[in-house]
């Protein structure tokens, strides 16, 4: 029997992040743990992990990077046997880096994601959203996840990297292999190899045929203290761009589409008061934060009464933190003009999402473009919506009619 086939007896000692009901709707489970005597749960399933659910605990763990390291950041350990071959050690810097290297690993990519740098993608993202809507607007029905959300971040990221847009299906497949099918070691390993081999090919090609103005070229030319950065760094950042830049934002867009399909009053509010958009985006990010990141405990420590051992995995459930009533009033309610919203959808501390400005832009443009052209729509059948969960939470099939 696999870990996910045994019924969960007690959420605080036996939770299962891949349980189908939990994947679909993790919030009641998070709440049960958060309000129990044991708000940091533990499970032996899926090679074991801790699950803090209160805002303050999640933030403290994110801030304490020396105790809670980024040696591994996925909610499941890497596939067995993965550490083979010349580029097996390629990580996903800076997300998988610890200080001191973390500093330059992050510093080099930050300019690419500064607000003024991502603003230049607004028009192309809007054009892309419009082109996607053109495909289905006359049909009166569409899959808001698979026909719309899924196509947006992957094309934006491919454009930034300077890789062929036609490879979108492969990129999507590889990313899902890494993030959505963690219990399938073989698929994970194959996806990881495909990503590294693909980018290695892109690097080789640029050596023979130099290019300008794409991120891969910029990374290849980047220098730190007078020396070119190692190839492993270039490949690692490329891998991060795909793995962290696609599934995450597409999940957030999808969840927001699912929400808007069921809340005509929020569509109306945004239509009548466009000034709400900035706070509305933050509120939607709070409620539908897609990402959970893991940390590896550096040394034995008692954290909030929990005996954590060196090497233990801790899951920073940002979606759980974002619905902690100790931090947010009426946490399960979407309040588009919420006053106080210190949400951690993008994490906290030194590993705070480097691409948050791009993600915000994509989410806002995707919602605005849809709502402008399809102001009224609803779910075809709420029970037919399917979800991914674990590392990244969001809808994968979400049929709407209009």
């Amino acid at each position: 029997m696999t870990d996910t086939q045994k019924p969960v007896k007690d959420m605080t000692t036996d939770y299962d992040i891949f349980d189908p009901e939990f994947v679909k709707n993790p919030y009641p489970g998070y709440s049960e743990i958060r309000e129990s005597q044991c708000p940091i749960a533990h499970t032996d399933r899926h090679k074991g992990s801790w699950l803090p659910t209160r805002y303050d605990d999640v933030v403290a763990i994110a801030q304490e990077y020396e105790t809670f390291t980024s040696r591994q950041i996925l909610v499941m350990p890497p596939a067995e046997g993965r550490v083979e071959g010349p580029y097996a050690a390629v990580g996903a810097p800076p997300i998988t880096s610890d200080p001191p290297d973390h500093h330059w690993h992050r510093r080099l990519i930050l300019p690419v994601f500064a607000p003024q740098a991502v603003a230049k993608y607004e028009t192309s993202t809007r054009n892309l959203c419009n082109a996607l809507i053109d495909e289905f607007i006359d049909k009166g029905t569409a899959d808001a996840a698979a026909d719309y959300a899924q196509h947006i971040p992957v094309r934006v990221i491919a454009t930034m990297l300077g890789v062929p847009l036609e490879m979108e299906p492969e990129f999507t497949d590889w990313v899902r292999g890494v993030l959505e099918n963690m219990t399938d070691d073989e698929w994970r390993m194959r996806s990881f190899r495909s990503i590294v081999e693909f980018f290695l090919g892109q690097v080789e090609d640029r050596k023979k045929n130099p290019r300008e103005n794409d991120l891969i070229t910029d990374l290849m030319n980047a220098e730190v203290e007078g020396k070119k950065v190692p190839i492993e760094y270039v490949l690692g950042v490329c891998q991060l761009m795909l793995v962290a830049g696609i599934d995450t934002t597409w999940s957030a867009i999808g969840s927001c589409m699912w929400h808007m399909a069921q809340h005509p009053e929020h569509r109306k509010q945004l239509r009548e008061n466009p000034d709400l958009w900035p706070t509305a985006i933050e509120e939607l990010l709070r409620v539908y934060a897609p990402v959970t990141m893991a940390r590896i405990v550096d040394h034995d420590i008692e954290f909030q009464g929990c005996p954590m051992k060196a090497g233990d995995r801790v899951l920073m459930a940002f979606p759980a933190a974002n619905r902690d009533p100790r931090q947010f009033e009426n946490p399960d309610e979407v309040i588009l003009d919420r006053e106080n919203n210190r949400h951690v959808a993008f994490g906290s501390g030194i590993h705070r999402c480097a691409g948050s400005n791009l993600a915000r832009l994509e989410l806002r443009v995707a919602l605005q473009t849809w709502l402008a052209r399809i102001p009224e729509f609803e779910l075809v059948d709420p029970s037919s919506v399917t979800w991914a969960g674990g590392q990244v939470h969001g809808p994968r099939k979400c049929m709407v009619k209009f």
Partner: protein
Amino acid sequence: MCAIAAPEVFGSDEIGNAKILISGDVPEALHAKVRRAESNCPERAITITE
């Protein structure tokens, strides 16, 4: 986040780190916006001195 809440007061440098665009006291007309920036900063990096 602060640059969204109070763009007259907060901006970002070339690597996207937040920076303060004005010097001295915050004009009264911007107090509400700056309070919002403070109460929405996920890193608790803003302190208002009165």
